[in-house]
């Protein structure tokens, strides 16, 4: 494997992939809704790392495309976190739990 990891970009990409997988795993195996959100944040961050890495090692860093993607993604993630956690709190108020396998009613 080390022989194949000849470029730093591949290293960053692998780290991002692993982080993504960790986030996905967290979102899949944990019962708490907040942790699912944490997992999603991790996945988003892994994507950001990918974007930054591609920007850094890509052919046109001065075009700033990857960087901008990352910055916008960070901002969107902030909005996503705010709304997501607001939803979790609202659901908690409604059902008195944040455990996802208990929250499977499709109507309020």
């Amino acid at each position: 494997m080390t022989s194949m990891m000849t470029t730093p970009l591949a290293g960053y990409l692998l780290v991002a992939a692993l982080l993504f997988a960790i986030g996905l795993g967290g979102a899949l195996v944990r019962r708490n809704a907040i942790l699912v959100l944490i997992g999603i944040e991790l996945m988003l961050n892994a994507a950001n790392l990918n974007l930054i890495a591609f920007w850094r090692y890509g052919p046109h860093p001065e075009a700033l495309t990857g960087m901008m993607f990352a910055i916008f993604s960070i901002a969107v993630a902030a909005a996503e976190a705010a709304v997501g956690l607001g939803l979790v709190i609202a659901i908690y108020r409604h059902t008195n739990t944040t455990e996802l396998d208990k929250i499977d009613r499709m109507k309020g």
Partner: protein
Amino acid sequence: MIQESTSFVPQFAASSITRLLWLIPAVPIVAAGFIALLKQPHRKLASALATGSLGFSLFLSLVAFVHVVSGWAHGSVVRETVSFTWLHFGASRVDLGWVLDPLAAIMLVMVSFVGLLIFIYSVGYMAHDENFTRFFCFLSLFAGAMLGVVISNSLLLLFMCWEIVGLTSYLLIGFWYQKPSAAAAAKKAFVTTRVGDIFFFLGIVWLFSSTGTLLLYNHGVGSIEPLSLAILSTQHAGLGLSAAGAIALLIFAGAVGKSGQLPLHVWLPDAMEGPTPVSALIHAATMVAAGVYLVARVYPLMSAGMPLTASGDPAGTTVALTVVTWVGAATAVFAALIAIAQNDIKRILAYSTVSQLGYMMAGLGVGGVAVGMFHLITHAFFKALLFLGAGSVIHGCHEEQDIRRMGGLKVDMPLTFITYTIGMLALCGFPIFFSGFWSKDGILEAAQHWSVAKGPFYLLVFGALLTAFYMTRQVCYVFLGYWRGHQAAHESPKIMTVPLAILAFFAIALGVIGTPAWPWFRSFLENRAATFSWHGFAEPGLGLLMLSSSLVVFLGLGLGWRFYGNKSPRPEEPDALEKSVPWLWAPPRDRLYVDEFYGVTVIAFYKWWASVADWLDRRVWGGIVALVAWVFALWAQLNRLLDINWVDGGFDKTCEELSEGGGLLASIESGRVQNYLRILAVAVVALVVILFWSSRP
């Protein structure tokens, strides 16, 4: 409002009062609109609005009257018109307009003056009614519409106002609609007058189609001006009638309905169910006079084709006028007969009104406009006086209307007694001092000279006898003798007695303008100079006629006194006349069976026709409908079977399959977020794998 616009038919200079004439009906109508918006607590405002607006109309009427009189005094013919185009359709157009001539002027003054007095009287009479403002709203609307009838120069406009008058009459008769009898009376009045109105409208349509205009006077081209009349009187309408005669008869039918002439008089006595001021205003002074006024207004049409003497005096008569005369005379006697045996104070007056209207019609027929109209004017005053007096009596006797339960009121209600007696004597035609004598005498004189037949004359004389008789009976019952009611009577308040006094004054004084010595009224209407000379009495036969008619009146009064004077019979006792000649009593008591006659003829026919129609509906048409329905039902059954076994079956099967499939799919939609995420991840993996494999080099 009417503007000086292009739609104005060019006029010769109409005086400013003529231009403003429309205000006379408009102001009360607008006031009615305002009053309609008022709530019950605003009684004073409502009555003030109504009387104020009518007072304004009276003022304008007086101005118009003075204008006409001064024009007449200067020897010029006053007939000023203002007209405007209301509708265009195709080549023809409908003009509406108003006219100011002596006839309209005198009517305007009469209607607004009597109306104003009755308005004032109503303030006292209706003081305790809970629908006070509604009453004044209707009264105002009525007064406006009636004034509109008076000033109309177009038969169509006249007809509109005529119908508004009919409507308000309906509303006012049925004012106490809680009483079933009042509601029924209102309905009866409305339906009965409609019968006449249909003919009237037919006449209007015919007139329009023949002459192309509905303006009565329009500088020589109006529908009742010589140019049109010459055409109309030469056209033949069959049955030996000219078109003019036929149209005149149709219009007269409307007048018959409105004025309660013989075949259609049945609604008028029943209309006494309304409040007494209404009876006075509508069913004595003004509305019923509208029919007479209508005949007077279209008199040129009535008399079209009348042969004239060399000097221009009428030398014969026309079919229309003959019919008018006979109908009037017959009505006069017929109604007077019924009045003899009535016990309701207002009903007696109602039949007396019918009878007097007959006199007016006969007067129009035999003597022309002036004769009939003079009786109309004097009658309006003394009949209003009588009705208001009766209202005062009813009010004082605590809503008692049966004359057998009254008596001796001359002590309790002296003012009412005096004024009522004046009215009664005027109505009877008591010689010399009372206006009724002169107006009635004019009619009798004209009838005596009528060239066609003497029948009407004798009928009218007989009617005068009957009139004196039944009025004496009534006064004896009500005011003389002793009190037979339950509660002591009391005199009415000032607001009611003052109008009585004013009317009483005019019931006496109006005779002055119509004596043979100074025939001012006649000259005024016929546009001749009025001269005063005692020679008027010296006409051949006039003195004899006056004497004989006076004798007839005295005979009637004496007969009445003979039977009823100071008797004070108990209410349950049979009538004095009934005791002496019982066979004569029953028919008039039962109103000569006219209602019953209608019951077994017209109404029975309608009932029979209705049952026939009902049978047709049920059996014939119903059967056909049922057959069609059955056919459709059969078809529907077939359809249903098809649906159930064929369409539904297939559909159900499909639905079952779909819902099963849906169930399978729904099990994926568990509502568990992580399930979705899992599926998503697996899908991504699968997708990537497929992608890579497919793009392998």
